[in-house]
């Protein structure tokens, strides 16, 4: 009888790339369903086109450019990028722009660097940043939630983040009184609130319902797909920093408004925790999270854009190799150095 001889360990813990990738996809389902409910047909179309084009580009580049016999197209990472990219777009975005976003995310940001595991930047976020710079008008046209299947040509409006920015610019704290109430922000229904003469807009697909994202976070923590370090570091930093600002001057919106508005929750839970582009050690992850939280508030409060989450994460993606280099885990015992 021929026996296999290999080195230990001889058993494996059944974890796999697929389990993790599809696990995150599953964690995104509540937020996806919320986006379908709030934005209707437009959301479904954007999500479907985004996933389909991401998977297509992953497959095509693997097959025709890498000529890789073992394609990474079935491991779920392209589907995940597709969902996250769609989550970063408004539901009324023209579908050809969605395709361009997917091509940039997969083709440029992910595959140029060597594919799965090699990219420096989060593909979905880099795709969003690319689109935001290239198509600023379409990317910041926020449909009002709850228009159901009429949403494609529906009414749009500014988001609470724009209002918060306006309050800081004018120094007029009374503007903040027309913010949606916190329960509506948690659920994702901004349509009870008004902004200027219009109704407040909903925002990107995935960020609309903070509650659905928190459900996804709990699911990922329970299944040990991610650890708490990055999301908690980001959310805590934002809460503390905006809390201090709010105490100093009420024209700055408070922690609850910041945490529940815009892409903060989505970014902290699903974007910053991307395995490939986040630091490897617990200490590094905390530093990374704190820096993202800090940069987000800085951009939101004093920057040119109302939302700073995606830029903050992309900036810290660039710092990840540096953080990995300097943040070592605590070694067992005291290491005696010569």
């Amino acid at each position, binding site marked *: *009888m021929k*026996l*296999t*001889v*290999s*080195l*230990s*360990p*001889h*058993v*494996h*813990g059944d*974890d*796999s*790339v697929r*389990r*993790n990738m599809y696990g995150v996809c599953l964690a995104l389902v509540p937020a996806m369903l919320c986006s379908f409910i709030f934005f209707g047909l437009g959301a479904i179309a954007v999500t479907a086109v985004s996933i389909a084009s991401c998977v297509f580009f992953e497959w095509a580049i693997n097959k025709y450019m890498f000529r890789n016999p*073992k394609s*990474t197209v079935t*491991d779920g*990472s392209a589907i995940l990028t597709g969902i996250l990219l769609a989550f970063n777009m408004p539901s009324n975005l023209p579908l050809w722009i969605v395709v361009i976003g997917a091509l940039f995310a997969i083709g440029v940001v992910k595959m140029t660097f060597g*594919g*799965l*595991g*090699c990219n420096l930047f989060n593909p979905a976020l880099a795709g969003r940043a690319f689109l935001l710079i290239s198509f600023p008008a379409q990317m910041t046209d926020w449909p009002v939630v709850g228009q159901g299947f009429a949403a494609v040509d529906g009414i749009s409006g500014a988001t609470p983040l724009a209002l918060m920015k306006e309050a800081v610019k004018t120094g007029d704290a009374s503007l903040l009184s027309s913010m949606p109430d916190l329960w509506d922000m948690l659920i994702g229904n901004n349509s009870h609130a008004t902004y200027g003469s219009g109704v407040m807009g909903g925002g990107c697909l995935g960020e609309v319902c903070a509650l659905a994202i928190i459900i996804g976070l709990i699911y990922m923590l329970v299944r040990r797909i991610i*650890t708490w370090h990055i999301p908690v570091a980001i959310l805590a930093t934002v809460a503390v920093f905006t809390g201090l600002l709010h105490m100093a001057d009420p024209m700055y919106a408070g922690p609850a408004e910041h945490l529940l508005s815009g892409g903060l929750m989505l970014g902290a839970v699903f974007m910053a925790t991307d*395995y*490939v582009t*986040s*630091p*490897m*050690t*617990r200490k590094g*992850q905390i530093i990374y999270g704190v820096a993202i939280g800090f940069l987000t508030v800085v951009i939101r409060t004093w920057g040119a854009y109302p939302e700073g989450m995606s830029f903050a994460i992309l900036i810290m993606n660039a710092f990840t190799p540096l953080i990995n280099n300097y943040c*070592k*885990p*605590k*070694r*067992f*015992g*005291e*290491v*005696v150095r010569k």
Partner: protein
Amino acid sequence: MKTFRIGGVHPAENKFSAAEPIKIAELPKIAVFPLGQHIGAHAKAIVQKGDKVKVGQMIAEAGGFVSAPIFSSVSGTVQKIDAVTDASGYGKPAIFIEVEGDEWMEGIDRSDSLVTLSDRPDLTDKDIIEKIRNAGVVGMGGACFPCHVKLTPPPGSKPEWVIINAVECEPYLTADHRLMLEHADEILVGVSLLMKAVNVDKGYIAIENNKPDAIRLMTEKAKAYPNIEVVPLKVKYPQGGEKQLIDAVVGRQVPAPPALPVSVGAIIQNVGTAFAVYQAVMKNKPLFERVVTVTGKSLAHPGNFLTRMGTPMSQLIDACGGLPEDTGKVIGGGPMMGKALLSTDVPVCKGSSGVLIMNGKEATRAEAEPCIRCAKCVGACPMGLEPYLLSACAQHQMWDRLEQEDITSCIECGSCQFTCPSNRPLLDYIRLGKSTVMGIIRSRNAK
């Protein structure tokens, strides 16, 4: 419940043979004794072809201080001294003995009566260590470090505790578990002998809480020994690693190599070693048999066997219903740190804690995928290292960087590779890097 602080994993336990009482294995027809079955210098054969030997007769003497003598487990005639492939996969010189009858040496106490320390008030610490040394006792957990060397700490270090490793953290293995259930009294005498040998007045017996019956029994029996405490530990691999065990039991962390466990005051011995020490000192019986677990998912009747050294593993497998049709891999030891065997003819040695049969499906490694940098290996490493980095640096032959990243601290437990979602052969590369770096350090120190 106590456990070690950094990293660790929890593989499926699969302790199929936990309820199987220890059976006595049949005598082999030919017993084979490799001369190098411990850490340190090989033993030197003192018998020749044609010599008649008895059970318990010394057939090879220690080759130095860090070495151990080897005793025949059978009576018969020395057939030849020749190379044999042992569990390590390397050829080693070995003594082959053709078995005739079962005639024991004079002076070995074969009765079941318990001899306690109070029966032998004359024993001094030096006597105990001398007896252990002359009986060829080595660490029975698998590493086979000569026991008397551990009991002779270097000058300047002061032992404070004897910690008995009874965690048996490897999945499948149940030899230590059964030994505790069936020989608790002897083990406790063995522990007090070890404590007396190094002059400490505190002993711990560390048992993982997947063996509640052993914890109950040992705690009950240990009431008669006020200085010995049974410590239940939360199940986590690699708790049986010396450094992890010390951290779990007394909360001290041994510094990086070359520091020894005794530098934080701990002397670690396996529970099987404690039993062997009892037999060596109180029963005058040298180390020539041990309990071996024979197990596997496809095996008909997994079991635990009191086996004479030199018995081929194939004989134990036959006693369990024979090698299953679908066998893909046979492992000497447990699935996390055991060695895959080239053939089942390998003889049972002092460190053979188990034989594990894996079917073809289990024996096949899944194909490696790209590293997704999930950091799960970093979280699992019990030494606080970064396995993904060590593996990548070894792949690119960056030896200096590997030394900086403390690769020599790696205990090769395999937790990183076990946990890797991309099925990467992390430990294969780390072993390569570690042995190269150790070689570089050795040659640098030699200059």
